[in-house]
């Protein structure tokens, strides 16, 4: 056995190259050519006004200069804004996660009949199709300025995200546990509580923590269009050229996101 192998090895110095990602050379080089042509066209037709960009640079520098040092003088306002943002984020996460459980069950093909599945998927698709800012504009128009619009917006946003991922998690559970619950004579709801929910629980907690994080960030953004919270304070600071105060707000947002990421990471590791 061994001598034969060495003989073949010596006779042919075989080469190997990783096969190309796209096998057909025409398609491969054609795609590169199309991309280059498109980029050239896009840059040559977009209205870049280099003069105005040159003028704007010093102005940008002035703004950033004005932001230093950040001013924490109006800490009261900062605190009120953040408190409201946190309340919006917390309530909408709670509401969104709570509602996303039944919707996720509806949208999981292995535990829902086809018509229910389609309805569940539709709810998820609709709540995912718009960015929270657009939804916030709609809700501000519907229920007026203030935190209620923010809560409704972020609840919808949470449902879209959490229900979708949870539904995928349900579709991947160990079916044996469900079979065992069916074999003892449990009905549908008992089967869900014993056979399905324990399996998705760690994921559910992880997603909730992540969503709280995400809603905290998003609540600052939807505040800009009038849905309450720190976003409104930030917008006012910009409007009144209080760049130092605006910078203080931004620093606070970064700090809070860092802290909440740390906490949620720790919790997710603990519950597995």
């Amino acid at each position, binding site marked *: 056995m061994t001598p034969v192998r060495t003989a073949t090895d010596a006779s042919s110095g075989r080469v190997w190259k990783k096969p190309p990602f796209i096998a057909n050379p025409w398609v491969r080089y054609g795609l590169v050519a199309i991309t280059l042509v498109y980029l050239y066209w896009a840059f040559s037709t977009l209205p870049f006004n280099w003069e105005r960009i040159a003028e704007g640079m010093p102005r940008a520098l002035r703004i950033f200069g004005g932001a230093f040092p950040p001013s924490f003088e109006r800490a009261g306002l900062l605190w009120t804004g953040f408190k409201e943002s946190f309340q919006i984020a917390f309530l909408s996460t709670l509401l969104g996660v709570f509602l996303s459980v039944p919707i996720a069950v509806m949208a999981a093909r292995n535990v829902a009949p086809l018509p229910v599945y389609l309805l569940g998927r539709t709810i998820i698709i609709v709540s995912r199709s718009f960015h929270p800012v657009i939804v916030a504009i709609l809700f501000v128009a519907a229920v007026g300025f203030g935190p209620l619009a923010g809560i409704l917006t972020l609840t919808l946003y949470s449902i879209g995200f959490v229900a979708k991922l949870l539904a995928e998690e349900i579709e991947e559970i160990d079916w*044996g*546990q469900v079979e*065992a*619950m069916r*074999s*003892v*004579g449990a009905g549908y709801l*008992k089967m869900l509580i014993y056979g399905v929910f*324990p*399996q998705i629980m760690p994921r559910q907690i992880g997603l909730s923590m992540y969503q709280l994080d995400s809603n905290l960030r998003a609540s600052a953004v939807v505040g800009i269009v009038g849905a309450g919270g720190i976003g409104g304070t930030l917008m006012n600071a910009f409007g009144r050229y209080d760049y130092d105060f605006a910078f203080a707000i931004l620093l606070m947002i970064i700090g809070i996101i860092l802290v909440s990421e740390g906490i949620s990471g720790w919790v997710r590791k603990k519950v597995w």
Partner: protein
Amino acid sequence: MLEITNLVKRYGRNDPVLKGLNLSVDGSSVVSIVGASGAGKSTMLRCINRLVEPTSGSIKLNGHELVNLRGSELRHSRRRIGMVFQGFNLIDRLTVMENVLSGRLGYVSFFQALTRRFPQTDINRAFNLMERVGIAHYANKRADQLSGGERQRVAVVRALMQEPEILLADEPTASLDPKTSQQIMRLLQTLASEMSLPVLINIHNVTQARMYTDRIVGMRHGQMIFDGAPKDFNQDALDAIYGGIESPEEDSGEPQHQTAQEALA
């Protein structure tokens, strides 16, 4: 008393997996069902508690017809049929006690199930059974922290919590090491005689089938080709059940009874 008559199961338009099976089991006998993979053993067992829908035929448990039951009638019959699985199928993230009590899910209300407020009689029964198989001290441990043999004991206790009229075991020892699998087989054997419970066991290990069961049923290609006492289960029967089945790893030149002898080992 379990009576299966002319049971047929066909998946889609393929050849039937079960081709008119007849089997009756009475009293507290422990019956092992042997056969190569794909012979239809598992399908037959799952037809009994309707995890698999039979295509036609009749299955009667103590006079009650099980085929064609729907909704709550089906759930009520399932309560009386305990099942033990190869992969244990415990709820990994729940405690041993919750797993054991889940055997009562067919009897308690939804609210009781949700809040884990099971009746005192169920809790007593759970402790008694867990003590009987030696796992009572694990009551508050998470099920996935137990060893394979211990987990299968939990699964057996869960099935017994149902107060079953028959126990089905689908290759209960295939995921266990040889020593543990013998312990589980002995446990099933003694429990069957203690509770005068008929037990049907799908099993690959022919030696264990001979040692721990009262009757061996041999299946091949969806049909029953042997039914008798372990002492009558000879080389001919073994060849009839396993012989001539090609295994992809081996060259075709080998004598066919070689495979059968491996099954014996």
